[in-house]
């Protein structure tokens, strides 16, 4: 469980986060949504410990980030998996090398043990036959799956994803969403996803928080989104014609 209490963060005098408080539960897929510039990425980087909040605290299962020593912070990082927007796979390594990298860095497993673990997670993300390929030789969707495999190879307690669907076609995006959701349930991970993708919201959003200008404007579940009267949320979520029609149908059905 991740508990965020009243965090503030500014850069060069510009206030980016303005007193955000929320709780991300274990075993749930938590989504952060909001327009570009709303502070989503800064918020995610605060959760990851890459930025220290100016005020407030972030507690990961009772461990409060700024209070930890650098050694404890590094230890905590090994409990985290991160899927970056652009996958951030190491170009110079094969798919297998990328997945084995955290194991090589932080464990004393033998080569065969590491290979077995890499095989297992690659099969889990349905990539059993891409071990020897380089990131440049595989598609964007496959790169995302390798990034997920790398993120879960150390059995993390927390999984963070920054725009995991960006650049993917809608069908592949749903595959990635479902994969993250299944892994969250299977390993009982606290998952936090930064997204713009409304399909993800409707598909896997067990808890959603909506940020606007650095403030938490709204929070709820995917079901609550249909019912909310919050204008900022509805304007954002139902900005496309397709979603406007879906909401209209939902309201007509309800009435």
């Amino acid at each position: 469980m991740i508990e965020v209490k009243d965090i503030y963060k500014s850069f060069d005098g510009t206030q980016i986060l303005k007193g955000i408080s929320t709780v991300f539960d274990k075993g749930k897929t938590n989504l952060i949504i909001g327009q570009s510039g709303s502070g989503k990425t800064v918020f995610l980087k605060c959760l990851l410990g890459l930025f220290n909040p100016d005020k407030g605290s972030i507690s990961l299962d009772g461990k409060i980030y700024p209070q930890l020593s650098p050694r404890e912070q590094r230890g905590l990082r090994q409990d985290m998996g991160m899927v970056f927007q652009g996958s951030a796979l190491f170009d110079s390594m094969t798919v297998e090398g990328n997945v084995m990298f955290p194991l090589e860095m932080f464990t004393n497993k033998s080569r065969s043990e590491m290979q077995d673990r890499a095989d297992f997670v690659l099969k889990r993300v349905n990539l059993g036959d891409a071990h020897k390929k380089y990131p440049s030789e595989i598609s964007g969707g496959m790169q995302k799956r390798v990034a997920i495999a790398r993120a879960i190879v150390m059995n993390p307690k927390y999984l963070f994803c920054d725009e995991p669907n960006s650049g993917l076609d809608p069908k592949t995006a749903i595959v990635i969403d479902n994969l993250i959701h299944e892994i969250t349930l299977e390993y009982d991970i606290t998952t936090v996803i930064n997204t713009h993708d409304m399909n993800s919201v409707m598909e896997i959003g067990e808890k959603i928080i909506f940020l606007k200008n650095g403030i938490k404007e709204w929070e709820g579940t995917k079901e609550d989104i249909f019912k909310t009267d919050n204008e900022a949320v509805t304007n954002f979520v139902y900005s496309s014609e397709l979603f406007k029609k879906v909401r209209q149908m939902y309201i007509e059905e309800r009435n």
Partner: protein
Amino acid sequence: MNYLASIGSYAIMIKEVFRKPTKWRIMKSLILKEIDELIYGSLGILIFISFFIGGVVAIQTALNITSELIPKNLVGFATRQSIILEFAPTFCSIIMAGKVGSYITSSIGTMRVTEQIDALEVMGVNALNYLVFPKIIALLLYPFIIAIAMYVGIFGGWTAGVLGGFSTSADFIEGVQLDFIPFHVTYAFIKTLIFAFVLATIPSYHGFYMKGGALEVGKAATTSFVWTSVVIIILNYILTQLLLGQ
């Protein structure tokens, strides 16, 4: 003020490079890879340039000997002194700032742009140690290629001097051996080692702290070449004054 801030963050970067080392098992393979890329990969271009520059120095010297009173062995002597004192350690380092420096900046800069460095940091890896330390260690072998450049440069001078009819082989070799001061080689290697550190760290700094996209990677590589060259030239002056000045 910007320059001071850059010098400060460069110093902090150097401190970070030596903190929290990466596992030796991984570091060993990174160092070998960098030796292959930075040292072995530069050997060809340095041999090629050294040979021809040595030849040009010999020809220029011979063509400028107009007085009969000047001994013919001056061609060999001037070639040796130019190559050992300046060409091999300094001029080759400027060439390396272009070849190796821009490679280092662009490879680390691309890792920054594509969030690979963020990925390392999120995992708890000391990205500076992982990326920069192997380059510093690999470039400790830089004096070896400079020694080869010295040899090839003098050989290039002999080839151009003798085959071009500017000097006899005996005169050239006599000149090469004339008044040889072994400390000049030591001085050249001291310079080379210091330049090697500059070649590994300044381009890394420009790559690691760059911001922006692909265009900025190119700009960072150019800036890194300019600053690496400037620092090498200034250090060359200071080291010459310190080591050879009376």
